[in-house]
Every structure is written in structure tokens, then in C-alpha cells.
């Protein structure tokens, strides 16, 4: 509850919510809390996240990126969604059942509703880390080196650069886990 209220206050301070909305929210939270179900109040306000749906990756040559991610990380290309300017690369669980995909795009290829890639943003995702199950240090390193990649990092948590110098981390659950930081 404290964190919820703190978030509301921050929203108020920053102007994201107005005073009226703030009061309504606190009153609602109090009412639900008094009914013994404070946690539910949070769930109903925000979303229940399932996972990463996709990442939109803009680069000078989408096909080069597509081929790299397909080759190095065994992502599966979806030919029907490759229009010569962008491609979808699937990985993880099946599509629609928790699977994710990476969209590689050329500059100017923008999804409907998206603002597209902008220069000079205040925030950036400076690397993406992928989990490799059944981690075998020697096998993982040998696989990456066989692709001609310069592998850095520590055992269980390796880094390589893709063709556009984007930092890609590859890790085991033992080395990269939010609850073991």
C-alpha cells in the first residue's frame, strides 16, 4: 500500500495526475483496504504483465540484423512478415502462448501508432540479455566463437556485439536472475 501511495504522490508531484484524480485514487484504495483486499486495488488499476511481446530494433540494414539473430540465437524468421524493410524473428514459447519476437527494421519502417526511432531520447535500452537454458560454458563460448564473435564477460554471463555494435548479453539463470542480485 505504501508503495502504491508513494507512486500516486509522485504522479501528483510530477503533474501526471491531477489533485482530483489523486484524491479519488486514495479514497478508492482506502475503501478496498478496509474491505481487506488492498492488493486487489493495485491489480485492478495496473496491468498484469505476462512478458515481452516484442522489441522493435531499428538499424541500417534489417536483413543483416535478421540473419545475424537467426544464425547466432536461432531465432525463427516469419517469412510472411518480411516485407523487404522489416522482419519478425520469433523465439521462446509458441506465438500466442508466451512467445516473443524481435522486429528488425530499416530506418523509416514504423509500426502503425508508433513514433518510430528518435534520436536524442532521454532513455535507452542499452543492451538486451537473453537466457540460454541448459547452459554449458564451453559449448556456449565455442558456438559464439565459431560465428567469429569476440566474446567477453564472465562465466555464465557473456557479451557479444551484433553487426551494428548493439550489446547483446547471453546468460544462464544462475548468473542473471532478478532475485539473486
Amino acid at each position: 500500500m505504501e508503495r502504491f501511495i508513494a507512486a500516486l504522490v509522485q504522479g501528483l508531484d510530477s503533474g501526471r495526475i491531477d489533485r482530483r484524480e489523486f484524491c479519488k485514487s486514495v479514497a478508492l484504495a482506502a475503501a478496498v483496504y478496509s474491505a481487506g483486499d488492498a492488493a486487489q486495488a493495485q491489480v485492478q488499476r495496473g496491468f498484469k504483465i505476462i512478458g515481452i511481446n516484442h522489441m522493435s530494433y531499428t538499424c541500417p540494414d534489417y536483413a543483416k540484423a535478421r540473419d545475424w539473430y537467426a544464425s547466432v540465437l536461432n531465432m525463427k524468421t516469419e517469412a510472411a512478415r518480411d516485407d523487404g524493410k522489416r522482419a519478425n524473428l520469433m523465439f521462446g514459447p509458441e506465438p500466442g502462448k508466451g512467445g516473443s519476437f524481435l522486429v528488425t527494421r530499416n530506418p523509416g519502417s514504423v509500426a502503425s501508432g508508433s513514433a518510430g526511432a528518435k534520436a536524442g531520447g532521454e532513455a535507452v535500452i542499452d543492451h538486451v540479455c537473453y537466457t540460454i537454458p541448459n547452459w554449458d560454458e564451453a559449448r556456449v563460448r565455442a558456438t559464439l566463437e565459431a560465428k567469429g564473435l569476440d566474446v567477453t564477460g564472465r562465466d555464465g554471463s557473456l557479451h557479444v556485439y551484433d553487426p551494428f555494435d548493439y550489446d547483446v548479453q547471453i546468460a544462464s539463470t544462475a548468473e542473471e536472475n532478478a532475485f539473486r542480485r
Partner: protein
Amino acid sequence: MEGFVAKQVHDYQNGKISRRRLIEILTLATTTAYSGKSAGAAEQSGLDVALVNHLSYTCPDFRRAADWYSMVFNLDQVGATARDVALPFGKKDEKPYGVSADDVPLTHIICRTRPPDTPASNRLPRRKARAVIDHIALTVADFDRERAKAQLAAIGVKNVRDGGPFSVYVNDPFGYEVQIAGLGVTAICGAEARATCSDKR
């Protein structure tokens, strides 16, 4: 091999793949066959990614970003330090959605504040990327676009845009674009195409 080529030609003639893509596929297949390996073996020569482990999100004020993602997506904050905090997509000991393996942890976002030229963990200077993740899309349970817009309005998120009939776009406090979608938006049926897509998973 013939069957494989026939399938690619069929896809090309039916407009499923471009001429360039057809050439790329067949070039790869033929050169792999020449070296004595099957196309399948070539595809499997990399590493099998199970899931995104984490996204490293860098911004001027990681606490503000983390609070926003916590509020909008009901995420806990764990392992906070003076410069970063992790937001796992679930509770400790939960498994990621759709994953049965025991060695695949929950995806998380690490919100951090650090100069862009901070050396990587290997202490080597970080290269300047010529690519950018311009937006991320997060899958949420029971997505309904109009309901989502109402939910976002109720928590003070402004400038919500439609991303086709099956997703919305918002901006976080630092202007980073976040798409919110349901399970039905997939690599096969994108947010724009889903209405006419034959794949209804």
C-alpha cells in the same frame, strides 16, 4: 532439397516472400548442401534462446522510471542499489508464462542511471551502437484496447495512442515508447494485421 526449394518458390509466387528473400534462402540452402550439411543443421548451429532475461533501461532518474513501471504494470522492485533496481515480471519462484523449464528465470527490467559511455561489466569501453531498440511491447493479461485506455487514464497516463485494434502505445516519464498488447499480437499476426489474420492463437 527439392521439396524445400519447391516450398520457397511456392511462397515467392504467392507473395509470401520477396524475390530478394528467395534468393537469400536458396543461396544459403545450396551452399550448406554443398558443404555436406542440411539446411536444418545450419539453422541449429547457434544458441537456442529461451526468453529475454532482462532489458537494461538507462535513463536520468532510475527511481522515477521504476516507480512508473511498477505503477502501470504492477511490478515489484527488488535488489535496489544506489544506481539501479530490478523489476521482475512476477513473484519469486514463479515461472515465466509458457515456460516449463526450471532454468529460465522471470524476465525483468533493470532501470538504471549511468553515463552512456560507462564501461561494460568487462571494463572495456562500450561501443557506440548504430542500432536502437526504439520501442518495446509488453504482453498483458486479458487485453482489451478500450479497457486498457480507461485503465491508463485512471492512473494518469496521457497521450495514449491506438496501435491498431489490438494494442496501445504510451510513453514512459522519459519519453520512451512502450506498446501494450495482448497474447494475440504475435510475430505472425502483428497488431495491425490481427483483424484479418488467419492465425487465431
